[in-house]
């Protein structure tokens, strides 16, 4: 479908919404293309080329929302869906007690395009399958490796956003990612363990994969999987932890990102994802972490997942503080919830995962600001601790207060030196106590970006995209338990 066709449909929707007298309305037409190449145990298991095209209409009537969407792109369906959105909003309004009032946002007309060196959709498929097969062969060269997986993923989203206020925004966004995993089995004990290496999800092209150099990393990944499966278990107890940026991306996401979503704090997610211990009365007053902890939301940093120029409210992306020198000072908001705490402008964190989903408040690109010193400096000042890389098991309560994290790889630190690997390390804690125990963040040269495209929230469930950057950080006196039944 051509851009002209999209414009015609947009005009049709806007005319209908204006005629219906809506307080606000918008349309998103989205054409998403993705390619996933997945290898497993030396073979290319699936190559899938997906196309997902459709449109969604939001209408605000009587202070209440209606949303309807369809993948059928005919003029008749566009009118039916627009009328349906209006009718649903009228139905919602029957139960409205606290009418939706959107905060102001300037009208924007813009086009946002991801710049990349190599368009991932123009890379020959044979190049990708050959790379993955070679990587898996490398992984299996290591004795003890029983299973392998390797995958490449790319997506392109072309989108048109128009609103009854006059905003008209065009997007052409690309994202890429790749990862490899080796699984080792220790036949003496029956145990198995995996080690992974992945690129972050970023809004870049195939250069992300080329620069990652999977063939160079594969022997290390396989060797560490084998070392991990027969590594000693951690003794439960209190340890100092040094966490790498990839691991921290998840800790930040779960224990800072989600509780800073204002819709959660206001009860919108109470029946599913949960609420937040960071209630509005704590804004500007609550000691979230130590003075080393500066968590900044930045939806303007190039290549990051939430840096899309504008959110799905048509609000320009911004940079703001969530936690400043340990103090909780900011939320992620949209145009609906920001006025409920007296804020005059949305932070631009309202995003939908497809044309068929209604936008909801999403975690921004929240990152931990670097500090001073090196990773070695952080480790040198640890008498008994654990250094953790990567992600594995994670779980957190519905207020984002009590959490538990594992990791992909663990090393014991003794008297300021990283010694040998451990397995089954799990640490748990209470969010503000944990961040309060942070006594060092490494310098900007250690800063890395990781992110997620599977952040679950909303009913029906949606997958959110965001990036979390961090440098290595140290946390004192954290409770560590072993990940074993009955322990």
């Amino acid at each position, binding site marked *: 479908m051509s851009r002209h066709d999209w414009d015609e449909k947009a005009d049709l929707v806007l005319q209908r919404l204006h005629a219906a007298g809506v307080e606000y309305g918008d349309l998103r037409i989205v054409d998403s293309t993705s390619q996933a190449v997945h290898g497993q*145990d030396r*073979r*290319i298991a699936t*190559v*899938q*080329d997906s*196309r*997902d*095209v*459709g449109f969604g209409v939001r209408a605000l009537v009587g202070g209440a*929302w209606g949303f*309807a*969407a369809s*993948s*059928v*792109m*005919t003029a*008749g369906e566009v009118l*039916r869906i627009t009328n349906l959105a209006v009718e649903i909003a009228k*139905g919602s309004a029957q*139960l*409205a007690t*606290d009418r939706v009032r959107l905060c102001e946002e300037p009208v924007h007309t813009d086009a946002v395009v991801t710049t990349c060196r190599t368009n991932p959709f123009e890379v*020959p498929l044979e190049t990708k*399958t050959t790379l993955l097969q070679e990587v898996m062969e490398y992984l299996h060269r290591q004795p003890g490796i*029983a*299973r392998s997986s390797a995958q490449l993923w790319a997506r392109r989203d072309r989108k048109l956003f128009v609103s009854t206020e006059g905003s008209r925004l065009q997007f052409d966004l690309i994202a890429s990612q790749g990862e490899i995993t080796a699984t080792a*089995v220790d036949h003496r004990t*029956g145990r*198995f363990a995996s080690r992974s290496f992945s690129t972050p999800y970023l809004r870049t092209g195939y250069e992300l994969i080329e620069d990652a150099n999977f063939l160079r990393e594969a022997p290390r990944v396989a060797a560490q999987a084998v070392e991990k499966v027969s590594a000693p278990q951690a003794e439960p107890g209190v340890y100092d932890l040094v966490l790498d940026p990839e691991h921290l991306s998840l800790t930040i996401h779960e224990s800072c990102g989600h509780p800073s979503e204002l819709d959660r704090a206001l*009860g*919108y*997610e*109470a*029946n*599913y994802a*949960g609420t937040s211990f960071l209630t509005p009365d704590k804004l500007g007053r609550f000691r979230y972490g130590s003075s080393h902890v500066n968590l900044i939301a930045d939806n303007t940093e190039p290549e990051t997942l939430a840096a899309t120029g504008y959110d799905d409210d048509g609000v320009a992306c911004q940079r703001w503080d969530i936690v400043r020198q340990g103090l909780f000072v900011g939320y992620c908001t949209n145009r609906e919830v920001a006025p409920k705490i007296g804020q005059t402008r949305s932070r631009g964190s309202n995003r939908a995962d497809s044309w*068929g989903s*209604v936008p909801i408040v999403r975690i921004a690109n929240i990152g931990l600001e670097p500090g001073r010193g090196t990773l070695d400096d952080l480790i040198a000042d640890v008498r008994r601790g654990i250094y953790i890389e990567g992600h594995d*098991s*994670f*779980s957190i*309560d*519905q*207020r984002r*207060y*009590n959490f*538990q994290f*594992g990791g992909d790889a663990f090393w014991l630190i003794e008297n300021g030196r990283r010694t040998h690997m451990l397995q*089954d390390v*799990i640490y*748990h804690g*209470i969010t503000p106590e944990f961040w309060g125990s942070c006594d060092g963040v490494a310098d900007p040269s250690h800063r890395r970006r990781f992110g997620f495209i599977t952040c679950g929230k909303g*009913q*029906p469930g949606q997958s959110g995209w965001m990036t979390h950057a961090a440098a290595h950080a140290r946390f004192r006196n954290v*409770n560590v*338990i072993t990940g*074993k*039944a*009955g322990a």
Partner: protein
Amino acid sequence: MNPDPSERGSSSLVGSGPIGREEFRRLAEIVLKLSPGQRTFFVLHDGDSGTTRFANNQIVQNVHTRRVSLAVTVAFGQQHGTATATDFGEETLRDVVQRAAQIARLSPPDPEYMPPLQPQDYPPLSTVREDTVGAGPTRRIALAREAIELCKSEHLTAAGIVSSSFKVVGLAANTGLFAYEPRTESKFSVTAMGAAGSRASGWAANVHRSIEQLQVVERTRTAIEKAKRSVELREIPAGRYTVILEPAAVAGLIGPLVWMLDAKSYYKGTSPFVGKVGRAIIDRRLTLQNRPEHEDLLGDGFNGEGLPASEMTWIEHGVLRQLRYDRYTAQEHHVYPTPALDAPYLSAESPSHEPASAPGSSVSTLDELIAGTERGILVTNFWYIRTVNPTDLTLTGMTRDGTFLIEDGRVGSALVDFRWHESPLRALLQVDGLTAPADAVSNENWKMKLPALKLRDFNFSSVSRL
């Protein structure tokens, strides 16, 4: 062919419904004819779904989506490729077939590729309820209003959803395979909460093919009762406790166990069940079956490859009998492939559905389990369940929305939520009592029929704190 559903003559705002069987057959014929592949497999999903979501006693989100999705897999020998699209205009069909064929030609041969199935016989399951087919935003709003009004009348705040969907799934291949099934599903869940600043919370949910079988009033009253009991929260230390898990919480243990019953992992040595087939893995009173025909479960007539649903016993009186075989692994090991365990039924009944009769296997009511407990903890639901150790299937999670101390056979104080740390392969060997199976619905699992269970020495590893 009339592939454009907007031209079917309906003026209804909620549309004319998904593609019919004969329309799908004509579409499949076109796709199979367009394909240059030796093997072609075509899957189509089409339907409407809607969700009315409420919080703070009003509707905060109200959505209705029509989504068509189709996938074509083309194979030349062992080379295969898949392409998908979201409409079924003729131009799209041509494009999606060409893209799949192009991928197949460029892909390396896959030694585990399995051609589409030959024609199958499918059980006539009752997968559609007319009330759900006809339910649109108006009905969903009315049900949401019932829940909200009930909570408001008790000075509580309601958050929840009412959702319904009517979809069809069609499969076809040039082996002659053809399957088509319409399916309805509806869901209700509600969290009743105390006033701002209060941690009082109660939850209940239901999922059913029929929107009129959601029991919105009864379930809301359950949530209200739990919330009212939770006004004063007490914190007690973490540790090992006797627990009574309501069916939704039991689903938190059974879901991951079922998910890990994968035969390929078993033979590769990366499964917690290695060496355990034919051995008791859970309490001898418990039998786990797939019962796709059960009217309260959501068993489908076929899986994504077209394998017919069938009743099957996976765990018989505690003994692991069945793994989930994909078609390639089944062929390698000379067994039949296994359709999904999508209608789990865990009970003390025999595989032939006879009531429990063996000594010690009689079932109790939930009240009787509570009355027989001197000191323990009653758990409504679990949340954020994740695998901690895949070797022994150790899981972690939180209690949520109604956790109560049981003392001297009575439900007493509401408790601050716990984090737990357990393997179902250990916990389900500590069964002190069980009820008959009941609806088990949670946010993290599909619908099951499961008993409430009384378990000894359940490991609560920390407290969430007041």
